[in-house]
């Protein structure tokens, strides 16, 4: 068998461009940034392409409001004009913010230290945005691109992580419950061997998703009793990689990659009454798209924006063609609708709110600035804010206001 190191040596044959010169051309950049690459060159091309296509945007926008497969509903709403502006950017005091959740009276941001395991769970005041508590966490979610591994509900804030007991294997998946009345870790629950992925909490219990430790190509979904917090069962998910577990339509859903083409492709539907996988969906046939569960609707973006009815798994909205080349965010409002945030700094971008039936009922004429792009986001209906976690240092509030 070919040695992997030998196989990787073919990379040595690549001619290396003068990246250092490119870095000099960019120039020294100040530390404060939104956490994404500079894409000036690519944006330039996109801007030119979009300028050529500007005439088509109005047509696209009309389609965007209609959606060719969207069932007719009445009455047709008149979109409310809103403004969407970054009104706050907060330094987390830790190098890598990882995820955000809203609930239990706060905005909760999990952050990672620069060089060691662990970090802080920050509690932000939803109104002022001030950090009102900083809770040290021995480990934090190991989510690969950030954004998951934290959930609120059942009187707690639940954060997954790893625990090491000095053995030479790997680790245990743990979920920690933070008591929002004391802002302290009230419980550390060892769920099983492996490493953590995500957590979901609802009336059916606490659902913790993790990778198997033994190198096998599947995930484990652990169910914890909502009252005793004990593991009551574990369900094998035939996905070799997954970042997402959520509840919708009375089912528990895992979004994972079945064939290994990361990041994800298949929705597994689990019946909480039997703890069995009862169905799978590959809604787009593609392997790379984001999902955003909201109430009993599962939104996803592939070749336009679409939504599944979480009860039946049938597509009920879309494809809706969007007048933007990239999404900066697909943020569920928790009530079936979704906020769609277009790529900042691109001609024709904007922000829209879609109801559960796919109708646009709010839109902003101007797109948000670059701080609106992050690795994770959560909507707080109490303040009409989207909290956006950047890949480095900061978290921002995108304030949505009727104009």
């Amino acid at each position: 068998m070919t040695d992997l190191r030998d196989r990787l040596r073919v990379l040595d044959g690549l001619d290396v461009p003068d990246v250092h010169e490119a870095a000099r051309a960019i120039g020294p950049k100040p530390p404060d940034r939104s956490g994404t690459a500079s894409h000036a060159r690519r944006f330039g091309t996109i801007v030119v392409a979009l300028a050529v296509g500007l005439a088509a945007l109005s047509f696209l926008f009309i389609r965007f409001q209609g959606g060719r497969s969207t069932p007719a509903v009445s009455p047709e709403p008149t979109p409310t004009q809103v403004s969407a502006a970054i009104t706050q950017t907060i330094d987390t005091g830790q190098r890598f913010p990882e995820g955000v959740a809203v609930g239990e009276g706060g905005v909760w941001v999990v952050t990672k230290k620069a060089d060691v395991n662990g970090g802080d769970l920050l509690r932000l005041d939803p109104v002022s945005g001030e950090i009102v508590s900083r809770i040290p966490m021995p480990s934090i979610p190991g989510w690969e691109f950030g954004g998951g591994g934290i959930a609120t509900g059942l009187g707690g804030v639940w954060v997954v992580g790893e625990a090491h007991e000095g053995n030479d294997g790997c680790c245990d998946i743990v979920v920690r419950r933070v008591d929002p009345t004391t802002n302290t870790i009230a419980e550390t629950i060892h769920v099983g061997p492996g490493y953590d992925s995500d957590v979901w909490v609802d009336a059916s219990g606490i659902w913790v998703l993790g990778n198997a430790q033994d190198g096998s190509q599947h995930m484990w979904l652990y169910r914890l009793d909502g009252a005793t917090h004990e593991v009551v069962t574990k369900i094998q998910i035939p996905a070799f990689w997954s970042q997402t577990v959520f509840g919708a339509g009375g089912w528990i859903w895992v979004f994972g990659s079945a064939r290994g083409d990361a990041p994800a492709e298949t929705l597994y539907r689990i019946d909480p009454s039997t703890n069995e996988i009862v169905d799978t969906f590959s809604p787009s046939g593609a392997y790379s798209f984001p999902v955003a569960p909201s109430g009993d609707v599962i939104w996803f973006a592939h070749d336009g924006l679409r939504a599944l009815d979480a009860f039946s798994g049938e597509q009920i909205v879309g494809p809706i063609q969007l007048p933007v080349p990239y999404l900066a965010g697909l943020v569920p409002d928790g009530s079936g609708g979704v906020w769609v945030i277009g790529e900042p700094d691109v001609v024709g971008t904007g922000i829209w709110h879609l109801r559960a039936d796919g109708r646009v009922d709010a839109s902003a004429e101007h797109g948000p600035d670059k701080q609106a792009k992050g690795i994770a986001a959560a909507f707080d209906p109490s303040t009409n804010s989207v909290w956006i976690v950047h890949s480095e240092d900061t978290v921002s509030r995108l304030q949505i206001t009727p104009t």
Partner: protein
Amino acid sequence: VVQDAAVTTEPRDAVERVWREQGPRLWRSLVGFTGEPDVATDAMAEAFAQALGRGDEVHDHAAWIWRASFRIAAGELERRRQALGPIEHAAYEMPETVADLVRSLAVLSPNQRAAVLLHEYADLPTREVARVLGCTQATVRVHLSQAHRRLRPLLEDHDD
């Protein structure tokens, strides 16, 4: 050149040393990670530019640049995941052997792929890989174990 030399500061020297000594290895690792030379170039250029801008704030420039480059590249992959339209690819033709390798590595999750490239190609010890990926050494070992297991059939195929 004289003018450059006059304004050169120690952090700038350190960044340039990272480029001279590790730049090619970093760029090639990023190509293996992303499968896209233009993404590798953009991510690395951004990381170097940020390192220059941060000056004394960065204590270990090599570790910082490796980590920032992979982090930024991962962010760009995520951005592309959310692409709604066709993605513009730079005209960079990879040799078929490299393209074949990139296709093989694509079956790995991003962290598995990064762990393999950092440890098996760039020769970083697992402690340094853990710093780049922001996880523990134990997790790195799991990533490597799973990656080897998953790549085994592909490596066997390659022998045919």
